[in-house]
């Protein structure tokens, strides 16, 4: 029933806009408002904090179904839920939870996450942004880049060095609101895919936030970031899965309709065998993703599961969408059909929230620990 509801919403409200927001590189604010009404921004959060009281399996299904028709819309929800709502719920004080979660869950406020810096990508521990305590305030200085939902989010979970001498243990997490003086959003990136999603730089120039906006323990930021990204990978794996399934659906339809040499493309065994292999990979991705989501729901360790899900789902999405374009032939290369957009959207899932190489590091780390 949940999948049916999200799918109906995605087909009727999200799909018609997908090509347009991609073409115009426009953030789909109207869709955000509609999703807020349905409670899509607080799916796994308990009702006492204004959430829907659902779980991570439902959240994964939602991101998948939205991404099936529009990769941009999927990541708006994923970044908000996994990277902002979740760390505040998991590491916030009761006061922080009461202040931020209800508005994030209702979609009144959108959330974002600031970890990556120009010199701290995969090596996230090389944080150069600093936070210094002055009286009752933390003073933040530095830049964050490639931040999803930047400019549209009201709440940012941001990481900064509070004690450089301690290395990784000198990183702390903070909650920054968009209207804080000294905080601004810089250059918006022009991207290959997920072009409707807002990706921009965050600038902290003597940005002063209340002392109480420290999230979790002083020096506990790196742990929070890694734990948050584990959850984020379930979201991005779901996005990749959705993109892959969307490309499969389009290709099944196209190959049934398109006739060459007197018969439908779907009647050729080459089509059938390749499509069978692809659908098997998509289904395998789905099971990996749901398994990771289930372990998270059960409170079991799921870090390697999330990494495997994201690695496999992202690489499957890239393979499926590339072949989907090939099956569509010349038409697939044009913007008349959605598969070229899906191929562009799929690529980022191999990169953000940990590249495929990082996922392999996480998986190998568990193997050889």
């Amino acid at each position, binding site marked *: *029933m*949940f999948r049916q509801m999200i799918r*109906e919403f995605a087909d009727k409200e999200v799909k018609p806009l997908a090509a347009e927001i991609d073409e115009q590189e426009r953030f789909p604010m109207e869709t955000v408002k509609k999703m807020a009404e*349905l*409670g899509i921004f607080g799916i796994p959060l308990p009702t006492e904090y204004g959430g*829907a009281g*659902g779980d991570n399996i439902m959240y994964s299904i*939602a991101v998948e179904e939205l991404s099936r028709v529009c990769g941009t819309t999927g990541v708006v929800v994923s970044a908000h839920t996994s990277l902002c709502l979740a760390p505040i719920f998991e590491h916030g004080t009761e006061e922080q939870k009461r202040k931020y979660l209800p508005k994030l869950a209702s979609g009144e406020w959108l959330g974002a996450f600031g970890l990556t810096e120009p010199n701290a990508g995969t090596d996230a521990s090389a944080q150069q942004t600093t936070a210094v305590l002055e009286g009752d305030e933390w003073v933040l200085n530095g830049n964050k880049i490639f931040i999803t939902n930047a400019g549209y989010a009201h709440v940012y979970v941001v990481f900064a060095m509070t004690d450089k001498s301690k290395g990784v243990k000198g990183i702390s997490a903070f909650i920054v609101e968009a209207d804080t003086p000294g905080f601004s959003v810089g250059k918006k990136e022009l991207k290959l895919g997920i072009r409707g999603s807002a990706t921009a730089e965050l600038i902290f120039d003597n940005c002063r936030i209340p002392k109480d906006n420290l999230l979790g323990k002083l020096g506990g930021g790196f742990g929070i970031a890694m734990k948050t990204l584990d959850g984020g990978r379930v979201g991005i794996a779901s996005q990749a899965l959705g993109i892959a399934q969307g490309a499969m659906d389009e290709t099944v339809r196209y190959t049934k309709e398109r006739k060459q040499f007197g018969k439908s493309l779907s009647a050729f065994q080459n089509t059938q065998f390749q499509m069978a292999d692809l659908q098997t990979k998509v289904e395998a991705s789905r099971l990996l993703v749901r398994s990771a989501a289930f372990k998270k729901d059960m409170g079991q360790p799921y870090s390697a599961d999330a990494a495997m899900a994201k690695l496999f789902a992202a690489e499957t999405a890239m393979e499926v969408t590339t072949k989907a374009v090939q099956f569509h032939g010349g038409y697939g290369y044009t913007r008349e059909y959605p598969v070229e957009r899906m191929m562009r959207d799929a690529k980022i899932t191999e990169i953000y929230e940990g590249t495929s190489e990082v996922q392999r590091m996480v998986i190998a780390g568990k193997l050889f620990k």
Partner: protein
Amino acid sequence: MKIVVCIKQVPDTTEIKINPVTGTLIREGVPSIMNPDDKGGLEMALRLKDKYGAEVTVITMGPPQADLVLREALAMGADKAILLTDRKFAGADTLATSNALAGAIRTLKWDLIIAGRQAIDGDTAQVGPQIAEHLDVPQISYVADLEWDNNRFVVKKETEEGYQRLAVAGPCLLTVLASGCKARYMNVRGIVEAYQKPVEIWGADRIEVDEEKLGLKGSPTRVAKAFTKGLKQAGEVFEVDAEEAVGIIISKLKEKFII
């Protein structure tokens, strides 16, 4: 205000295929949905609830799996759900169905009953009006819009020529059109809660109706024959005067070797 909405789980006829050999519906793999007119009716009830406060009870008669359509109604915002399910209800035509539903509704407190105009799997448009007759309350059918004003329900009733605006005091029954209002989506929280709320299961012994009036026994309708309508080509239309028309008709009949 207490509102009862009658809903039915139906196969999604837009996805249904017909077995070319037997001429019967292929039901396997066809998703079940809430009948569209009933969904429109539920939406109208929920809008009254949003605006004036109301308790909305949804009721359906069907097999145990009809539970799903009631949960969908709960997820949209209905407060209570009743499933009439019993082997004694099986094989019911519209009369036996309306007897069962009216018997159940008789045990409830209500001001308004809303039913969909007709179900997409039967297209009879009989059950709603029959319930009103059994309960002896006024009814307005083909309602496209519903408002509450000065203790009366003010409705827009569609007719072939246009529409009528009518006012009726409760208790009464309305049958409504899906086109009247776009139904809301289920809400995520609503879906989670729909599985925590109970769906009441009522058997024949729970309702106030003589068993002779239920199920196959209470159904005077007999299906004489079922057939698939053959496909016909679209005709050609000529707008000419009578004399010229005669010529065209004769030449067409000759063309087909009829004369």
